[in-house]
């Protein structure tokens, strides 16, 4: 069965969706079959980066969760659309309709959803990885996503609020014995390549740091118009994403 990841951050605006989209594409470029699921249900954004129109989705993730549509109707195959020369990339997008968002927020999703969707994606599409782009913060549904996936990737910015929130999150996850890793994002450039940074963060959170991504103004200028690493494969950002993908492929097992 596929390995499932949750990509999480304590704060919003940490670059979760950007990292998820680029990491998924990088894994696909390694020849892997990857499915990404937009679980940031109150403010879905992955479809913007992938440039998927709502009209392209025959059904949404919300429809699938409520048993109204088959997985096959909710999955969008992005492999050709993104021009990926190898690998496969699939996407399950959340609804942007306020009434459907409200319904899901009110009712929450079933604990069995995560295992079931991962199992079904493995059966139907032979995926190697399922990546859940979660809603930020320490809310129950997000913790359910983190704890129900095989591996948790926490994104953290180097500001006090995010460091404190990630610390608290790491403490909660440790109570459940969850395997977690940290990726530092938007790190001030003067700090990014200091080996002490990784040591100090790992020591504080008691979690391994598997990636450090400096702040690149080009990412902001890109304004989520497409997948950055496909447009700028030689940019240092792409190298940083590749390092994280290398770690995942070499080290992580479900």
């Amino acid at each position: 069965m596929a390995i499932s990841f949750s990509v999480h951050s304590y704060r919003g605006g940490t670059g979760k969706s950007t990292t998820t989209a680029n990491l998924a594409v990088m894994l696909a470029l390694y020849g892997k079959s990857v499915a990404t699921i937009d679980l940031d249900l109150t403010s879905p954004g992955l479809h913007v980066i992938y440039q998927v129109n709502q009209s392209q989705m025959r059904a949404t993730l919300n429809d699938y969760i409520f048993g109204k549509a088959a997985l096959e109707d909710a999955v969008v195959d992005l492999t050709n659309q993104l021009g990926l020369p190898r690998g496969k990339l699939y996407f399950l997008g959340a609804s942007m309709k306020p009434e459907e968002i409200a319904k899901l927020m009110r009712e929450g999703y079933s604990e069995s959803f995560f295992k079931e969707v991962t199992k079904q994606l493995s059966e139907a599409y032979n995926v190697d990885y399922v990546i859940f782009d979660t809603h930020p913060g320490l809310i129950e549904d997000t913790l359910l996503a983190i704890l129900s996936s095989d591996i948790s990737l926490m994104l953290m910015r180097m500001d006090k609020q995010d460091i404190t929130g990630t610390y608290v999150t790491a403490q909660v996850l440790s109570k459940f014995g969850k395997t977690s890793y940290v990726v530092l994002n938007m790190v001030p450039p003067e700090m990014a390549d200091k080996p002490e940074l990784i040591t100090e963060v790992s020591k504080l959170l008691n979690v391994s740091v598997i990636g450090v991504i400096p702040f690149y103004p080009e990412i902001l200028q890109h304004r989520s118009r497409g997948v950055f690493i496909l447009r700028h494969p030689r940019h240092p950002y792409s190298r940083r994403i590749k390092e994280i993908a290398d770690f995942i492929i070499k080290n992580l097992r479900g």
Partner: protein
Amino acid sequence: MSSKVNKKKHYFSPSARSKESDLRARISKALMSVQTDMGNIESKVSAFEKRLEEILSRLDDLESRLKKLEDLLD
């Protein structure tokens, strides 16, 4: 050409909720019962930030000394 391996359609059954284990309940319990000592956390984070500042200023100092040395050698 379809990339799908298995032609059978896959549905999620929302009624699976009733067969759930107790993870959601355990999360709820953990969140409600956690005794977070924010004072302790803040002091740890502040100490971490101070260490980083020290590391950065030490490196700045090393860099400026190296630059002076290079200027002297030039």
